[in-house]
């Protein structure tokens, strides 16, 4: 068991594993997005209250979901990195941050585009869901800035990890904000017992959430590979890989 774990966490193994899975995950994600788009834009009926504007849900909810998932991945990886001094965990956290930030931006932007026709406003400063999601974006950007500002990688990892872990409180508040305070933002759509979405609307949404997650995974793996290379740049396997004289690893070099 321990040996298996050790092998799994070894940088060259992770590099190869991530390189193998990333294209498959991306391909599955694209197929899923295609199916989800067909279901959400064409098959699903217009909402009886929101008309066709409700279709924004098919990109808004998966983005918002990823904004939180990305942060949780970053924070859990940071905990592992801090406690077990696992360099790979910090590499995961660093790789997740820009992707999470991009989907947080997307959640805010699509939310705004949904809010304008439904609420009559692009943005509402007093809405807790919007404010906490904006803070989430700042947490991501803060993490990235902090990490890149500190020259020494070990110290950058640790400082970033502390910020990431402290910021988890905000993720909890984002999630429960629509229950704790009544505001402009509507309540939960998925797993809401009071207002069950019909299958024709819900199924594409679930497909989109799964597909977006696969997409996130694919990009995370791709970024993780760069991060592992950079951190292991003095290791012999990286040297061999970069100069291209190891046939077993040359697949990775071709990718670039």
């Amino acid at each position, binding site marked *: 068991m321990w040996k298996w774990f050790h092998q799994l966490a070894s940088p060259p193994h992770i590099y190869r594993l991530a390189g193998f899975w990333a294209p498959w995950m991306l391909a599955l994600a694209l197929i899923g997005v295609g199916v989800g788009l067909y279901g959400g834009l064409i098959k699903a009926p217009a909402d009886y209250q929101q008309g*066709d504007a409700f279709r924004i849900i098919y990109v808004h909810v998966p983005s918002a979901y990823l904004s939180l998932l990305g942060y949780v991945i970053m924070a859990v990886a940071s905990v592992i990195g801090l406690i077990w001094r696992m360099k790979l965990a910090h590499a995961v956290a660093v790789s997740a941050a820009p992707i999470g930030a991009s989907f947080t931006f997307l959640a805010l932007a699509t939310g705004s*585009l949904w809010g304008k026709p439904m609420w009559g406003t692009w943005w509402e400063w007093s809405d807790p869901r919007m404010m906490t999601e904006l803070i989430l974006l700042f947490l991501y950007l803060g993490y990235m800035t902090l990490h890149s500002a500190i020259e020494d990688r*070990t110290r950058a990892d640790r400082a970033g990890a502390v910020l990431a872990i402290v910021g988890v409180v905000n993720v909890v508040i984002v999630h429960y904000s629509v229950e704790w305070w009544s505001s402009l933002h509507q309540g939960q759509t998925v797993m809401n017992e009071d207002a069950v979405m019909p299958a024709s609307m819900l199924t594409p949404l679930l497909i989109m959430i799964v597909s977006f997650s696969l997409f996130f995974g694919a990009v995370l793996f791709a970024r993780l590979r760069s991060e592992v290379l950079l951190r292991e740049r*003095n*290791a012999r396997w990286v*040297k061999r890989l970069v100069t291209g004289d190891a046939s077993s690893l040359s697949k990775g070099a071709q990718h670039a």
Partner: protein
Amino acid sequence: MHEFFAMGGYAFYVWMSFGLTFVVMVANCWLAARRHAATLRQIRRQLDTSDPLGPATVKEVVA
């Protein structure tokens, strides 16, 4: 067909949302690929100019 693109009068909001999503997803792929290429370039350059013993033996603490 025209009805589909009109989105019941919400065309701007719906298509902007989906368009932005597309842009963010493409950007994610592009930035990840660019970063990987840049990383490989950086390491290669470092190997070229490093001391004759080779970087594999240099005990530089990276992480």
